């Protein structure tokens, strides 16, 4: 299978600080992709470059074979590459219903709005109970559901999640994991950034360890790893 996304030699950063150094990786060839690595080593920065929030200094990002570097975030959303950002602030004073309507803003997603809304409600029945409630008054877990729900409303062809379980209790984490698994089974390939390795091992088939803005190690399916080995990668050899 061709990769749905390939990042080729991307260098990016903020101002004069370079965070990503010639990073390359592929997603969609062997199922879902997980990214992990120490804090502050550029995972979020990579996702921002992919979704057009940040312009890379060099390199190519191919989505479905087409170079999307230089495309606006709107065009990238319009192509079906949907990014759920880290630490979700979302739209604090909008209701869940408003967020869902915004998720379906792009012309590509609009015709599927009703069908996707049903999907979201089936996946996260809790949201239906609080449909008119403002996002700021929701719990962390519910807010994460709204973020993912909003992304589903955008009719994703590739869904990117940045630390979806950040700050969630173990029980909520497991529920969320099951929901995300459902989405994946529904045919949407995933790229997931997570600190929780169990969560990643459950959801993804291919792992990348991102270290100092580059891929330090790639773990393909079959090369299964145990928790200890990953931990030792985290903390250096």
């Amino acid at each position, binding site marked *: 299978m061709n990769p749905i996304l390939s990042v080729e030699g991307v260098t990016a950063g903020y101002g004069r600080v370079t965070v990503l150094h010639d990073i390359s990786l592929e997603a969609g060839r062997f199922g879902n992709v997980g990214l992990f690595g120490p804090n502050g080593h550029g995972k979020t920065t990579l996702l921002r470059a992919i*979704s*057009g*929030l940040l312009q890379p200094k060099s390199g190519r990002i191919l989505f479905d074979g087409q170079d999307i570097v230089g495309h606006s*975030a*709107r065009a990238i*959303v*319009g192509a079906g590459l*949907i*990014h*759920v*950002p880290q630490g*979700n*602030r*979302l*739209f*604090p*004073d*909008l209701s869940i219903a*408003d967020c869902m*309507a*915004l*998720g379906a*803003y*792009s012309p590509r*997603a609009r015709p599927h709005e009703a069908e996707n809304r049903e999907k979201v409600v089936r996946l996260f029945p809790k949201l239906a109970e609080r449909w008119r409630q403002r996002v*700021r008054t929701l719990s962390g877990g519910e807010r994460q559901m709204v973020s993912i729900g*909003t992304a589903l409303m*955008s009719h994703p062809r590739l869904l990117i999640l940045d630390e979806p379980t950040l700050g969630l209790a173990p029980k909520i984490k497991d529920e969320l994991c099951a929901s995300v698994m459902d989405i994946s089974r529904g045919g949407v390939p995933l790229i997931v950034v997570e600190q929780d390795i169990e969560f990643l091992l459950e959801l993804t088939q291919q792992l990348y360890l991102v270290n100092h803005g580059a891929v330090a190690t790639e773990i393909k399916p079959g090369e299964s790893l145990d928790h200890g080995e990953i931990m030792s990668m985290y903390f250096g050899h």
Partner: protein
Amino acid sequence: MSALAEILFGGLFQGSLYAMMAVGLALVWTTIGVFNFSHGVFMMLGAYIAWQLVELGLPAMIAFPIAVVVMAGVGWILQASVVRPLIGRPNIVLVVVITTLAAGSLIENGALTIWGPRSKQIPALIAGNTTIGGVGVSLHQIAIIVITPLILAALWMFLNRTRLGLALRAVAQNEDASHLVGLNVTALYGLAFAIAASLAGLAGIFMGGYRFMSPVMGSDPLLKALIVVVFGGISSISGPIFAAYLIGFFEAACSYYFGLYWTPALLFGVLILTLMVRPEGIFASRSRGLA
């Protein structure tokens, strides 16, 4: 009876003008997070464009809508030229105060050059006078009192009942998240400025219909709109609308009982007290967002 009628009428009338001005200022603040100091100049320009179109022989009822639409374009262009290039800079609020002040003074001097310093007047919305409750009022003022709430209600409906309005409210709250649902953030910024400039232009047309116009006619209304917005809270558009009418009634009552001379001092006194007790404004919640 006639005292009450006078205060009520004066309050409604001033409140309408203040609301029309302040709501645009608040709209720009809530969506883009900047204060537009050329807002008063928008008001002036709207009035002068309307005057020019009437001079050219267009009937007022055609000239006025055209002027309002032209002002939307002016707002868009101003945003694209002196606001958008600065977005993302540190100190954006202060920098935009300066760039919009500069652009405003350029436009003001342009108006002076084109139209000259001589005072002008545009036709009233409706000519004639009447008496209500023993108070003589012009039909023009009554028209303003009736039209303004309708327009503000329409704006509220637009923001709260349409998807485009929803997008504007969203940009106000989280720019990155707006990009990630595919909103055209720059266009929405332009739209916020365009709407604000149109409303200011309309306020100018209202004002030019009962008072003489001059190229500096917008500076006092800008100051008043700033007071209204600070008083009502800059975090929403409903806060400034209520505040505009409140201040309108307050001024009307003050000038009735204490005279015009004391009114500004009393107003500032109340403003300062309010800000000491509620720095975020009387109708504000703590966050930025349109509602």
